[in-house]
């Protein structure tokens, strides 16, 4: 800690902390454009100028003759900083006047207008008039850099935030400054498509309207919007987002800071993937089949039909749920089937392979990846399956100096910074895992039981080339890097590969034998929640058995929640005598349904979601569901009540209390206790182990 003085206030700060951060901690403000707390400071915009000086031994202060950039100035002993003097105000005025020379000031039609740092800083610190009467620089407006990002070069103030984002955070370096001087422009190579998976973030960090969202273009102004804190439900990462809506319609998604999950970034899938909220094919009324067509029905009519087909049918009925159902919904779904229908045939798993069993260590928190020494990404297209985990793995590499190896059958983004890429033949993941384990065992790095040792005969670095298509040297080096402080990271995509239990088992053995940690993140939005809530059959049928059962007539009634197996199992859906489809959107499975129930989307209900690391996060209702759509938990609760009169659940908070009673791991997730950033609830085994409870 060092002692310094800011505007006459003496305080202590860690040595080397940037002055703009220290000043922020003090509650004062230094205006910035190019500085971003999550990226390296470059001092490009000169907006953060401060006067500095040093305390002399005799107690006097010797000021520097010229101001310095606060964003590149580290705190040091005896530093004296003045952020609010006459001269600094003049400097800021000058910088802003300079930045505005070529800025078109088309704020009324700019999507950034109203939430624009340039606007705000000009209002607060800028000159009210300009002395520049010459022609402004004119460049093409609204250039579509990609299907998501629109580039307006006239508005650019060349702060470099976007360029640095692609370089430092997303790692694709798709944007760079081309040309020089007044013509300098941030753009892609030859203005080709900006293909980054994280391109949406540059829109948010742009301090002007140079990079704007093509999807949000002209749809609203900031003061038209209402915003609610939300959780992205497009994948299992559970990014925190701001859910912006206007007149009950979803308008845009912005990143919300949560250092445990997404820091403040979002992926394009999440940022631009919420269009379906406003889709015209949203289901709005319960529909009941009469002959060849659907007739709108009331909820009670629909419930009667469903209960007639399902109640007390035992093993003849089954339920399958998709990934986008809240914890409360999943819990009541399981309870509805076990208590009211007497059936254990419920499942949530859609990966093609059979699911391996056996205890698994609790999933590592995403943020803890940063502190690892080495990460082996195995059998998963990380940026596609778990985009935010990908950013963390990259951050571990770029900021903490971790090494990363990647083993996947196709080109992927991790290869760009990986020490070694073990690109195996598609389908050879199991063999590669065995070779790695074999190499570790034969080299004496790891010890395994004799049974496993026997299975590994013939699998080693030398046979890797022939068995998996990865060169022996690479395998040898990759195996050598595992050990204490290393992580073997995979996702449940591994279960799509042939011989998944084998690949999974070998990989886990590899991690255990070498003393590394093993983590298998699920990819379905709430798959982790479903696992924890025991939404797998204890002794009943699993997903594929249920669908097969539908085909051979063993299953007489099937309830699909937000799932559509019609592309692979349309025969099953066609044969099953009674099909309930409950979902948000019309789809193919609906064509076979006897009853269709409209479901409220995540932002249209109160509920909690469990992300891949086992973090339960609450998403409060932001907008009203369309028409008569109801949240899934309410539908299940109402069905349960009709079949077995009991004390009803009035709100999801009560459901969560019940969940916490049945599954004690969820105790910290009760609404009265749940912190804003969510609570990690994972128990020792997240995948595989048969779950108790469920009523």
């Amino acid at each position: 800690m060092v002692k310094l003085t800011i505007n006459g206030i003496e305080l202590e700060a860690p040595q080397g902390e940037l002055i703009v951060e220290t000043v922020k901690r003090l509650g004062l403000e230094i205006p910035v454009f190019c500085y971003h707390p999550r990226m390296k400071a470059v001092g490009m915009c000169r907006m953060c100028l401060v006067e500095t000086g040093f305390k002399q031994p005799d107690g006097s202060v010797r000021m520097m003759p010229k101001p310095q950039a606060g964003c590149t100035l580290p705190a040091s002993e005896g530093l004296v900083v003045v952020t609010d003097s006459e001269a600094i105000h003049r400097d800021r005025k000058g910088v802003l006047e300079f930045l505005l020379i070529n800025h078109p000031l088309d704020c009324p039609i700019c999507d950034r207008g109203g939430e624009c740092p340039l606007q705000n800083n000009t209002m607060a610190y800028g000159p009210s008039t300009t002395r520049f009467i010459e022609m402004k620089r004119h460049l093409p407006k609204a250039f579509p850099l990609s299907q998501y990002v629109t580039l307006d070069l006239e508005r650019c103030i060349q702060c470099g935030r976007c360029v640095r984002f692609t370089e430092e955070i997303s790692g694709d370096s798709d944007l760079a400054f081309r040309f020089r001087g007044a013509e300098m422009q941030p753009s892609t190579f030859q203005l080709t498509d900006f293909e980054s998976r994280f391109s949406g973030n540059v829109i948010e960090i742009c301090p002007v309207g140079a990079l704007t969202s093509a999807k949000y273009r002209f749809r609203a102004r900031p003061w038209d919007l209402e915003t609610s804190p939300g959780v992205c439900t497009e994948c299992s990462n559970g990014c925190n987002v701001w859910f912006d809506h206007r007149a009950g319609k979803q308008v845009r998604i912005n990143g919300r800071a949560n250092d445990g999950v997404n820091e403040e970034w979002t992926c394009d899938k999440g940022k631009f993937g919420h269009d379906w909220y406003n889709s015209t094919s949203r289901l709005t009324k319960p529909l009941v089949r009469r002959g060849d067509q659907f007739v709108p029905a009331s909820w009670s009519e629909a419930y009667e039909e469903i209960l007639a087909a399902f109640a007390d049918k035992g093993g003849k009925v089954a339920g399958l749920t998709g990934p986008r159902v809240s914890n409360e919904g999943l819990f009541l779904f399981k309870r509805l089937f076990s208590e009211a229908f007497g059936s254990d045939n419920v499942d949530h798993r859609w990966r093609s392979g059979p699911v391996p069993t056996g205890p698994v260590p609790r999933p590592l928190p995403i943020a803890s990846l940063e502190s690892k020494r080495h990460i082996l990404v195995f059998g998963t297209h990380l940026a596609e399956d778990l985009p935010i985990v990908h950013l963390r793995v990259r951050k571990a590499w770029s900021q903490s100096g971790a090494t990363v190896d990647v083993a996947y059958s196709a080109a992927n983004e991790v290869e760009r910074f990986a020490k070694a890429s073990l690109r195996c033949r598609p389908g050879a993941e199991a063999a590669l895992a065995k070779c790695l384990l074999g190499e570790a065992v034969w080299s004496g790095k790891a010890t395994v039981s004799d049974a496993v040792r026997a299975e590994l005969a013939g699998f080693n670095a030398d046979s890797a080339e022939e068995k998996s298509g990865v060169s022996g040297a690479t395998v040898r080096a990759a195996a050598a890097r595992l050990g204490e402080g290393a992580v073997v990271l995979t996702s449940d995509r591994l279960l799509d590969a042939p011989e998944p239990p084998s690949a999974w088992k070998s990989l886990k053995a590899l991690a255990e034998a070498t003393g590394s940690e093993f983590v298998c993140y699920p990819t379905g939005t709430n798959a982790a929640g479903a696992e924890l809530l025991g939404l797998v059959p204890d002794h009943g049928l699993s997903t594929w058995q249920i669908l097969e059962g539908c085909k051979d007539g063993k299953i007489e009634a099937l309830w699909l929640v937000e799932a559509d197996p019609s592309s692979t199992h349309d025969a099953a859906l066609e044969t099953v005598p009674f099909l309930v489809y409950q979902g948000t959107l019309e789809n193919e499975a609906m064509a076979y349904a006897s009853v269709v129930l409209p479901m409220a989307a995540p932002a249209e209900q109160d509920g909690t979601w469990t992300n891949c690391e086992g973090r339960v996060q609450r998403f409060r209702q932001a907008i009203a569901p369309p028409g008569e759509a109801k949240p899934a938990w309410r539908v299940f609760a109402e069905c349960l009540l009709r079949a077995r009169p009991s004390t009803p659940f009035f709100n999801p908070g009560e459901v969560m209390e019940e969940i916490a009673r049945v599954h004690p791991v969820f105790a910290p997730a009760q609404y009265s206790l749940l912190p804003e950033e969510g609570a990690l609830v994972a128990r020792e085994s997240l995948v595989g182990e048969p779950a108790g409870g469920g009523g």
Partner: protein
Amino acid sequence: MSELLQIGAQRPKAPEPDSLELRFSPTAVEELEALKTHYPDLKSCVLPTLWIAQREYGGHLSPEAIAEVAHRLSRSYAEVEGVATFYSMYNTAHKPGRHLIEVCTCLSCHMCGAYRIVDHLEEKLGIKLGETTPDGVFSIHEVECLDACDRAPVLQVGDQYVGPVTPETVDELLERLRSNPDSTVVQLADAVVKVHLRDGKA
């Protein structure tokens, strides 16, 4: 610069690494390997590699040349293009002629009649500054100070300074260059590469 922006709403894709047509000669690849050893990382190697590319692509850093450099150094295309378009001695905007005559028009040369030379060149070759003769032999550029004020007005042709020049000596120069079948633009690039290689060995 803005012709690149005129592609309108179409969004062409950046070339796939596999589809690149690599044109570095075996010698160039050898030189590149040697250069790589001079620097702590490949990012630092971009500038000399661009000179190699400028030589290999006939004096012109086309998008293809930039893509090849990026590919060979495992950098992103955009990053290398950003570097190439920043420095004015890389010919990124258009392909220059066989001989690029760069006229210094900074203060000393200006006062010694640089613009007279420019006017003379423009009239003689029938082109404007920044253009190339239709036969592809000459290009003329205006450049900032060449650090040869003692020889003002000075021209740079390839790796040679010519000056002080008068309209008459310019005519002689043009005749001499016209009969020179080798490209002085490529010679310049080659000379720079050689300097880089030598520096590494020293």
